[in-house]
């Protein structure tokens, strides 16, 4: 009968089926998707369990072993992203439920929110499929297909609100995504030309500093950087994220950029680290530093909440990159783990923030930061969720962000890379500034605060945000578990390389 290893297919197959069904059967799309999200989490949990029992696994799709066939694999990084996506996926689904029922109850334009809901679910499920496929895939061309799946569904989601601004942003997003994935594909071709295989595991064994790898890494990295919205190439992100519907912003900011980042991470640390010189890592660090500072400054100057959050995403992505030189020279595997740990902490926090912003916007009708005061009286949970998520962005204990920052600082100080440490601190200060710009508005209730009617389903909007925010806030306390996942997941060769 069905073997235990086949669980690995579930995170791909189930959302896929849900996407098809929810496109086909529109009425029940919500519940189909919700069920799929929950099954997805369960599958992720089972995979984690299997991982702890029997270590990294490889699964040949169709029974064809690589290099001929495609393999799926679970290892630490993949699993942590899988679990993250699963958890946040459920939260986002719940939130979207509340969000759309809210909007459908108060239609601003006939039919529009309903249309949005109908198409949201299949698109979201395909997005989930793409992400899970990306994390699990062990084949570089298959990864390209998942990237496209992610890219197109993300553009579709971004365009869902139907406003001109969001359409513009979505088109730009789509083109950027096209450019990114084409660059990636070019890299795939180079690799195939050089080694004649597409499997990650085989590539890892073969890879060395050869011309093909060099070209592949250069174009793939730059493509993925573009897709991840790293600093000088971030232009597409803020409009896309800020103009989308709230659940969509959450998906885009929390998960989608993490997908391409994960790939970058995998390429640089898992597969090709032997081929990469130190300077390359420093370049990544420099880009990260630029992102942290620039994103922070831009976040400071925004007048709108969602734009602020979007720019903070840019800033936070910089942290992930700044970890590259630190992990390379840090001489300890922790920094390596810190990257993904921080990424997942940030994902939870960012999703919670966008959810809060969406809730506020639904209730208030706008998201101008200066006019938010008083909202706490009606949406206390949301206000708190925003603040709690902000703690993660600021990197204060005990959040996941803190643990990540801690490990990075340790690495930078123990290897005397002062500059990175200073940038990390400066980024935190900027984060404090832009988080509290909002929080101070959220936390006060002026006497003349306007009265806002609470939607009966507002709980569905508020609590998922709070739970994610709390997860991000308390992630530091449960750090040993994900870190264990990462530690065991690392291939011995990589440990050697990074450690040496």
């Amino acid at each position, binding site marked *: 009968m069905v073997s235990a290893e086949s669980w690995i297919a579930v995170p791909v197959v189930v959302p896929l089926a849900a996407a098809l069904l929810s496109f086909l059967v529109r009425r029940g799309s919500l519940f189909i998707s919700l069920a799929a999200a929950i099954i997805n989490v369960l599958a992720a949990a089972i995979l984690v369990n299997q991982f702890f029992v029997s270590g990294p696994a490889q699964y040949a799709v169709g029974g064809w072993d690589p290099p001929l066939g495609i393999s799926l694999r679970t290892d630490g990084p993949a699993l942590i992203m899988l679990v993250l996506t699963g958890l946040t996926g459920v939260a986002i689904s719940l939130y979207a439920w509340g969000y759309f029922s809210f909007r459908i109850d108060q239609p601003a334009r006939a039919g529009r929110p309903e249309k949005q809901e109908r198409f949201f679910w299949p698109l979201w499920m395909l997005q989930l499929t793409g992400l899970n496929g990306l994390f699990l895939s062990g084949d570089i061309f298959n990864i390209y297909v998942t990237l496209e799946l992610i890219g197109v569904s993300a553009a579709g989601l971004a365009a869902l609100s139907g406003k001109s601004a969001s359409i513009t942003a979505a088109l730009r997003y789509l083109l950027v995504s096209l450019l990114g994935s084409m660059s990636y594909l070019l890299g795939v071709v180079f690799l195939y030309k050089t080694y004649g295989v597409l499997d990650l595991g085989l590539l890892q064994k073969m890879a060395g500093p050869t011309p093909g790898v060099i070209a592949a890494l250069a174009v793939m990295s730059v493509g993925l950087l573009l897709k991840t919205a790293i600093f000088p190439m971030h232009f597409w992100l803020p409009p896309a994220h800020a103009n989308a519907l709230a659940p969509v912003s959450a998906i885009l900011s929390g998960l989608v950029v993490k997908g391409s980042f994960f790939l970058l991470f995998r390429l640089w640390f898992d597969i090709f680290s032997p081929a990469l010189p130190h300077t390359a890592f420093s370049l990544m660090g420099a880009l990260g530093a630029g992102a942290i500072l620039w994103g922070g400054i831009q976040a400071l100057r925004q007048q709108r909440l969602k734009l602020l959050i979007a720019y903070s995403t840019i800033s936070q992505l910089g942290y992930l990159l700044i970890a590259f030189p630190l992990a390379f020279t840090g001489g300890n595997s*922790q920094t390596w783990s810190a990257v993904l740990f921080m990424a997942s902490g940030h994902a939870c926090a960012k999703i919670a923030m966008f959810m809060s912003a969406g809730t506020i916007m639904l209730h208030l009708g706008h998201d101008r930061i200066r006019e938010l*005061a008083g909202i*706490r*009286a009606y949406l*206390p949970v949301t206000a*708190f969720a925003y*603040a709690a998520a902000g*703690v993660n962005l*600021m990197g*204060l*204990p*005990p959040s996941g962000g*803190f*643990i990540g920052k*801690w*490990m990075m*600082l*340790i690495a930078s*100080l*123990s290897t005397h890379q002062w500059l990175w*440490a200073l940038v990390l*601190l400066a980024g*935190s*200060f900027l984060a*404090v500034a832009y988080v*509290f710009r909002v*929080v*101070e508005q959220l*936390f*006060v*209730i*002026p006497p003349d605060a306007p009265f806002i009617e609470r939607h009966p389903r507002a709980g569905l909007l508020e609590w998922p945000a709070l739970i994610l925010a709390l997860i991000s806030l308390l992630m*530091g*306390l449960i*750090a*040993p578990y994900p*870190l264990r996942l990462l530690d065991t997941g690392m291939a011995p060769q990589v440990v050697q390389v990074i450690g040496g």
Partner: protein
Amino acid sequence: MSWENALIVAILMSSFLPGIIIFMLPEKSTGLRTSLNLFGALLKMTLVVIMDLAIYYGRVFHMRLELMEGVELFLNADPLSAMFATLSSVLWLLTTIYAVGYLEGSPNRSHFFGYFSLCVTVTIGIAMAGNLITFLLFYEMLTLATYPLIIHRGTDEALAAGRSYLFYAFGGGGVFLFAVIWLHTLAGPADFTSAGFTPQLIDNDAPVLRFIFLLMIAGVGVKAALVPLHGWLPRAMVAPAPVSALLHAVAVVKAGAFGITRIVLDVYGIKNIIQLGLLPWLMTLSSITIIWGSLRALQQDGLKQRLAYSTVSQISYIALGISLADHRLALIGGLVHLVHQGLMKITLFFCAGNLAETLGIHKISEMAGVGRRLPLTMAAFTIGAMGMIGIPPTIGFVSKWYLCLGGITAHNWWVIVVLVISSLLNGAYFLPIIITAWFGKQQGSWPREKNFGRFETHWMLLAPPLVTALAVIVAGIIANAQFSPLAWVEFVVQEYTR
């Protein structure tokens, strides 16, 4: 889990859980909120006292939670933490009562009391932190927990104060984090022990260690309001009186001073720090702070502002005592002032709050003759102020006495000069308040008078300052008794002067 662990957790939870529940309570359920608050406070106090006794009889309280390799949460209740925890929990009870009275009928109380409880939880966490990471964790959380309290009024001024607070606190926090990590990379993960880190390190990295020390002091110095870093404190006075009391006596400023103590005694260790020659720096810094705070206090007309600057000055007594850490008496003086300053300053803030709440008085120039209208409040105020000046038999005298003794046994005349000048200035800014309150002639009517029936003000506003004022006197008179703060501090100091 042994009962010791359970006790630690229970102590933390006894304010945390009520805090969480209070957050969720609707605004209207005043009774439930108040009883939860008081129940939590009483429970916490009881538990802390039990813990004190157990510590006195040699029990060890440890709790570890590993976050990752080399980073663990470590809660450890040694006598020093017990001292701070006791102070905080007792004063929290009083402040809670006071706050309930103070905020009666004002909006957003669930929010307020929720953060109030979180704040004390975090403070207890600071007290019981057993290593730098844990300390840092709670230290940063303290900023977060107090910020909503500072901006509670929601006025522009409050927001500006909040911003200033954040600027300073997170600036300090960042510097502190940096220093902690730096030290971590040099010395590895280490718990607070009276020995500090290994002496070999000094041979290799003395200049770096010095620099780290400066960074650390700057980091915690922000909360302890050491002089160039004190700017937030007077501004934060826009917060309601219970918050000021909390900031000055229970939580924030205390946490900073406690941090200095920990850094000198437990992170570096007395021996090491002397070898590094760092104490004179600390002494200079604290002396400047003492004098500066007093001088600035002299020029304030706002009562709370004056008190705030007085805190700036007084808190550095602790640092001054610590800076003579190799002399037992000075150490005792410094540590005992941690408790004493808390009692005295909270009295003063309670009284200032009473003046503001009952009569609408915010300025010293409006206080003439107020002693007749609020005799009990002003009596408490007088006692608190006397304590601040250091007039016997108040506890202020006790700590000053020990500090001076420490100075003289160390042949460090500087300390005495500083303390005498400071006392002179303390007198110069407190005595006129007392005189004008008691002997001045009332000018016209009070700015905004409220009547509370039987007592001169709401009983919940009256009882806490009276209790603390009594404590200011009694704890001074019985300083040598077995169960006084002084005795406990001597117990604490045993560990460090062995």
